């Protein structure tokens, strides 16, 4: 790479402009410091300055990447630069690029890095919990670790599968050459990167003690780290909305001729339902955080009891977003698993329509259950039976997904490749996660389990055991297609078995520990739980080590010892595997035509998609 390539609209410029923007905003924010705003003088904290700084910093970052170029050049009447449409070179990955395949790989690396940081936080949390009393971190640092872990994971994993895999594969699966809004697609990624960086800056402002929920009276009285939390989640919400909207428009308007709704691969259905949740739920999050930010800066009182606000308002708004959000984390995993199972069972997807109904059912019901997070909060006590019923009803569509997964295995010819192992593990983990959820949905049981390690273990079973296992399944299934280089299967199997056993050995006991009376987010706990917590911590460290096996595999096979991947190593009949690895820049020379069944296993050969791939560019 030539040195002068470093100058221009790229990541380097973006970081420089981002930092400059931050300090300009910081300075501007201190100009508006006013006597009338009471907190400043007695606490020395200036939330307004920090919010302004984050805003200008993000704007600087995006301008540095070149997001302003197109509108500015158009306004000036000049032809827009074609830099973002570059078709080759490593430089594409470090800037604004409108190729959906580049964005997919950017997402994989970028989100992967932040998830890795979130995982390290979990290791530090488990280190502290080796002892029932104080061990390594003081109360504030411990809570900051808990908050950083939870917020980072919840924020980043929302796009954990849609970001890398839907961006890369949905256009291919629907026979399109690009997403509907390629610049917005790139924007969603870079917004997330800005957000993740902002969340890390919370450490410089004293951390935040609120966990990922940021419940209002606490988040209003806490120090400036909460501003980083607010800015992070608002940017994530914005990114989610744009990502979901882009996906919806793409799938609705850009399907190849003949690709009717009932011919879409099930992963596309997982993407659509997730996108609907993103588009409808994320605005609630952004507006809630906006209200919280106003309470902290402009002295409004949305959530301030004494001035007529209500903490219940925050709880309600947060979970109106928060419960669809957890299905944003579940549905893509279901899509991946149902996509992988047919390939390695050599069967069509069993009950395609039932699976789609299940996904749509989950999508609709997920908006009607949020108050099960508030069963003991004292709000709407007489509505608890309704929320108990609606919550338990969600197990019906979830059951559809299970029965479709099991039906696909029926009389199949199962090959236990690494992606298949992860998909099968999903069935087991999500089963445990779903069944433990029944205890939380039942009010009398919830009295014990609410806010305990039981509920924490429950959602780790559904999100980590569900989404993250599906994520890794997708990585082993698709990364050779994305990069053109194979992953090592032996290391993959070691990764899987260590991860699967360590995962269950970590979170299985945590279900019991919660039942035995350990609340979430505590830095000390009762002495009789020490043995169990030591077991869990050591299992968690092994779980962390399994991620290192994966990292070694990824870096070794993709950077150092590269083996070119075959076009179709799995014998898949999905369209992306009819294309060369990696997929050429323009995807297809001619738009493909699709047969009636996305999974024509055991069927007639002619029903697989007819593809004329683009000639590979040199």
């Amino acid at each position: 790479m030539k040195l002068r390539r470093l100058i221009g609209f790229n990541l380097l410029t973006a970081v420089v402009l981002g930092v400059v923007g931050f300090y300009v905003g910081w300075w501007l924010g201190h100009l508006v410091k006013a006597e009338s705003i009471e907190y400043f003088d007695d606490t020395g904290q200036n939330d307004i300055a920090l919010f302004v700084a984050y805003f200008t910093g993000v704007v600087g970052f995006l301008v540095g990447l070149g997001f302003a170029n197109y509108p500015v050049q158009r306004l000036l009447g000049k032809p827009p630069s074609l830099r973002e449409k570059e078709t080759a070179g490593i430089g594409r990955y470090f800037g604004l690029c409108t190729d959906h395949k580049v964005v997919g790989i950017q997402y994989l690396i970028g989100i992967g890095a932040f998830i890795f940081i979130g995982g390290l936080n979990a290791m530090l949390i488990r280190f502290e919990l080796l002892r029932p009393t104080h061990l390594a971190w003081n109360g504030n640092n411990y809570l900051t670790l808990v908050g950083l872990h939870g917020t980072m994971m919840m924020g980043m994993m929302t796009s954990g599968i849609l970001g890398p895999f839907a961006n890369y594969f949905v256009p291919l699966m629907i026979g399109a050459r690009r997403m509907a809004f390629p610049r917005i697609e790139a924007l969603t990624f870079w917004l997330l990167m800005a957000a993740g960086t902002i969340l890390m800056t919370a450490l410089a402002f004293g951390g935040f003690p609120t966990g990922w929920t940021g419940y209002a009276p606490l988040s209003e009285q806490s120090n400036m780290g909460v501003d980083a939390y607010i800015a992070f989640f608002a940017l994530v919400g914005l990114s989610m909305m744009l990502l979901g909207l882009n996906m919806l428009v793409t799938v609705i308007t850009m399907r190849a001729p003949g690709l009717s709704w009932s011919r879409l691969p099930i992963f596309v259905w997982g993407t659509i339902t997730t996108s609907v949740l993103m588009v409808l739920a994320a605005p609630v999050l952004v507006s809630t955080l906006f209200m919280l930010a106003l309470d902290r800066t402009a002295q409004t009182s949305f959530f301030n009891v004494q001035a007529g606000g209500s903490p219940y308002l925050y709880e309600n708004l947060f979970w109106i977003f928060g419960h669809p959000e957890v299905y944003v984390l579940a549905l893509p995993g279901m899509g991946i698993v149902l996509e992988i199972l047919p390939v390695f069972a050599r069967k069509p997807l069993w009950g395609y329509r039932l699976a789609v109904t299940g996904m749509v059912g989950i999508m609709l019901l997920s908006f009607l259950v949020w108050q099960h997070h508030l069963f003991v909060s004292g709000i709407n006590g007489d509505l608890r039976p309704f929320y108990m019923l609606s919550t338990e009803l969600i197990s019906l569509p979830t059951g559809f997904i299970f029965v479709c997964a099991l039906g696909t295995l029926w009389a199949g010819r199962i090959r236990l490749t690494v992606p298949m192992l992860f998909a099968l593990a999903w069935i087991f983990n999500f089963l445990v996660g779903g069944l433990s959820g029944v205890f939380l949905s039942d009010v009398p049981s919830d009295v014990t389990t609410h806010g305990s390690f039981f509920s924490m273990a429950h959602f780790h079973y559904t999100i980590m055991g569900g989404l993250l296992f599906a994520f890794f399944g997708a990585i082993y299934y698709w990364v050779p297609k994305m990069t053109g280089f194979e992953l090592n299967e032996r290391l993959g199997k070691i990764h899987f078995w260590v991860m699967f056993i360590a995962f269950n050995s970590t979170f299985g006991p945590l279900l019991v520990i919660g039942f035995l009376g350990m609340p979430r987010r505590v830095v000390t706990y009762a002495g009789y739980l020490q043995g169990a917590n030591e077991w869990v911590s050591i299992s968690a460290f092994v779980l962390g080590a399994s991620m290192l096996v994966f990292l070694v595999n990824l870096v070794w096979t993709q950077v150092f010892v590269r083996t070119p991947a075959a076009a179709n190593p799995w014998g898949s009949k999905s369209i992306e595997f009819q294309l060369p690895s990696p997929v050429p820049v323009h995807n297809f020379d001619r738009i493909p035509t699709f047969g009636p069944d996305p999974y024509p296993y055991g069927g007639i050969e002619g029903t697989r998609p007819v593809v004329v791939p683009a000639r590979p560019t040199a």
Partner: protein
Amino acid sequence: MWSSRSHGQRIAALTVIGTAIVLPLVVFVLGPHMPPGKGTPVASSQVTDNTVLLVVMTPFTMFILAYLAYALVVFRAPKGEEIVDGAPMRGHFKSQVAWLATTTAAVLFLAIFGTTELLADNGAGGGGGPNPVAKPSGAVFPVQVIAQQWEFTYRYPTYGGVETATLVLPAGRQIAFHVTSLDAIHSFWAYQLGVKADANPGVDNVAYVRTKNPSTFQIRCAELCGLWHGYMSDTGRVVSAADFATWIAARRRQFAPSMKYLPKYAPSYAPDPTFRAG
């Protein structure tokens, strides 16, 4: 190759055998040890509730595990086999309907069962808001729990509103906990009593429980409330009526000089919004 019918029969048999083995273990071995123990009638019925949930789940779990195990053994492609497709089966209406019917029945049963338990136990020990739907008949013994960063204090309105730092309850009485907060959201969790109620500023959240014999119970804050949340725990006691009378009389004498500084007893107290912590 076996027929579809014999696969089905084998999986059904595995499910039945698995359920027959696990179900008695759940009911007779695990059930009596389910949390939160049998310290109060509310806690006991939570134990029953947890056991019933496990019983309903067991056959479903056994079916899915049996199916997975069977599929992994029988439906495996032989090692080294070329990629061969299975039969193109795209669904089976009867089994889909059977699955839907079974899961629907289970879900409806659980929802109805949960609702009856909730109402029969006067809110099952959970906080039901200022005016709970299900109230106990007869006399109640009110205790106010005031959560604050980072401890619980307790006021006894029927004893002049005296405020203490430890929770002592008379045995064999129907207690009404009135849980409120002075600052952030806390949650009052008395584990062995089977009680959990969020403490919200400005809200009087009521939870009912009938105490049994003299015993001790653990109290922890179950909602993240800031810096010392992890240290916000306490031990409460249930004592005989006579011991309680002695104890409360001693507290009233001890705190008599400070009573005039306490705000008058109220369902909730004005929180201080300018107070900042952690």
